[in-house]
């Protein structure tokens, strides 16, 4: 029996434990090492929220509920559909916690979403120092509000009084026990979990642990979530069908996201579509200039962006349409499909759009995603 358990990440898997000079050490969290540092003392700051619009009644109720949870030192979970304004719900809580001089963190598993959120928070809270901590930008660790990726949580120990955790079920956090341990280690107060794709088990387990659950099934503009339209085209036929679909969408003058399951398929599709369509770009995790590619695409009013699941969350664009290529791929889970569909119709000006799935066959994940969207839309 192996008696060693890592004091930082609680790992006791013998395959992840090494032996150095006769002593055991943890190999699971060895990459997450930070020199000890002394946090600064925080002082209360009175901040003003600069939001150009008012929250809906449902949003306000949950916002008040979260503030009550904060007062009662109780963690909470917000299960709200995509495009319901989850981020706006926590602004009130941030304002109150800052006024009491608390340390606040906003954590998301995806680096792209962190980069997207920083200017958004700076615009809402113009008088505070918003600091982004992610791979490639980790020199400043402290600020009034820290927005960071889960991979950077190891830099903090018993630090955050309030931690807002968005997209809890996203890769790479989901299913990684080391990251989970790092999040717990960094927090000394409450955690507010936000997602659009919690499972029933997640919610029940959280309730049993003494947490408070809030649910919101309505998008902030009151329009339904676009339903999934799947088109069954076997083998190579979908490679031709996608050209026709993109021509139609381009005629409407709207930008299109084409989600692909793997980088290799993305590269093949890019080469193929480039022959027929002028305005095609490709973004995936290992491409160096992906940030500039995404930013350039956002400035456009039309065009096609082929992407992997890196852009499935946290991206908002006017008039965006979505095609999920090979949506029956085993890499696509129910939550991934819901999140991808959720990119469509997020703006009040253009609340409708198309979500087309090109498949060989309809999988159980596609059916489950469709069912979940139908249930959410039934609450309208």
């Amino acid at each position, binding site marked *: 029996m192996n008696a060693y358990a890592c004091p930082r990440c609680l790992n006791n898997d013998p395959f992840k434990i090494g032996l150095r000079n006769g002593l055991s050490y943890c190999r699971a969290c*060895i990459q997450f090492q930070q020199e000890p540092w002394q946090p600064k003392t925080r002082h209360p700051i009175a901040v003003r929220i600069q939001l150009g619009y008012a929250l809906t009644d449902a949003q306000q109720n949950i916002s008040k509920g979260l503030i009550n949870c904060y007062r009662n030192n109780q963690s909470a979970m917000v299960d709200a559909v995509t495009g319901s304004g989850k981020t706006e719900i926590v602004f009130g809580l941030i304002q109150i916690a800052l006024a009491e001089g608390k340390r606040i963190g906003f954590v998301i598993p995806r680096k792209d979403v962190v980069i997207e959120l920083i200017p958004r928070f700076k615009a809402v809270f113009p008088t505070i120092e918003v600091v982004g901590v992610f791979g490639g930008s980790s020199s400043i660790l402290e600020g009034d509000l820290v927005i960071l990726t889960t991979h950077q949580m190891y830099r903090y120990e018993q630090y955050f009084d309030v931690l807002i955790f968005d997209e809890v079920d996203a890769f790479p956090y989901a299913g990684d026990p080391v990251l989970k341990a790092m999040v717990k280690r960094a927090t000394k107060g409450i955690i507010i979990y936000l997602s659009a794709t919690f499972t029933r088990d997640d919610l029940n387990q959280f309730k049993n642990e003494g947490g408070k659950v809030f649910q919101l099934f309505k998008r902030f503009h009151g329009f339904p979530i676009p339903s999934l339209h799947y088109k069954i085209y076997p083998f190579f036929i979908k490679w031709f069908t996608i050209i026709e679909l993109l021509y139609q969408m381009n005629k409407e003058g709207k930008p299109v996201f084409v989600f692909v399951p793997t980088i290799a398929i993305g590269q093949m599709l890019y080469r193929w579509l480039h022959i027929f369509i002028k305005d095609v770009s490709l973004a995936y995790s290992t491409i160096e200039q992906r940030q500039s590619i995404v930013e350039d695409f956002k400035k456009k009013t039309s065009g096609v962006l082929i992407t992997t699941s890196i852009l499935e969350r946290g991206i908002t664009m006017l008039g965006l349409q979505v095609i999920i290529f090979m949506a029956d791929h085993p890499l696509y889970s129910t939550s991934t499909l819901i999140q991808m569909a959720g990119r469509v119709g997020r703006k009040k000006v253009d609340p409708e759009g198309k979500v087309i799935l090109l498949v060989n066959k309809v999988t159980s994940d596609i059916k489950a995603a469709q069912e979940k969207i139908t249930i959410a839309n039934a609450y309208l």
Partner: protein
Amino acid sequence: MLICKYCFRIFDPLHVWHFLQRPLLCRICYQQIEWHHRIERWQGIQIESLFDYGPVFQKMIYQFKSNLDVELGSVFLNQHNTYLKLKYFQYTFVLAPSHDDDLIKRGFHPLVEIFKAVGLPLLILFEKNRPYRQSEQQGRDRQGIQQVTILKKSISIPQRICLVDDVMTTGETLKAMIGLLKPISFKHVKILVLARKKPEKIEITRHAKNDKIRNWKQDIWHG
């Protein structure tokens, strides 16, 4: 069933060779560290390198040397042990210098951990007279290694030696070692490094390529 020493992924042996030499890295990790076998002449000596100094190799060697993950030491040469043992038979591996303070701090000698699995004699012939990290130096400052490296006294040098290092970027460390060995006479010397800086790619655009072909055709036509 095997477990990758780097990513902890479970994998199966894929090649017949894997049943004889148990792999320590899964196929994905092994591909990512960019195996690139090169044998060239450098400073008049044969130099052999096994990997390109790419981002994943960089991460791996950092985890091994700076995060003190000693278990990773065995993964780099795992698939090359037999080849190296046959090729460098009768040679002694002379390790690149390290400062004693660094070794005490680490608790292990990184090059010993990497090369001990080959099964050839290892010799620590050089040392640094002060703590000095080549990886922290930039450009011409890297030549400072020549003042820092010294030869250990009262050690007999074998006739066939192979200078070994983990990473070669500008080659200043190896130059310093060669410089110190010049006054001493011995039969054979070779160099073995784990990873070398990637050779720079010269990209030829389609137009440039067409021009080149046109020029060739013209040359042939006009004799």
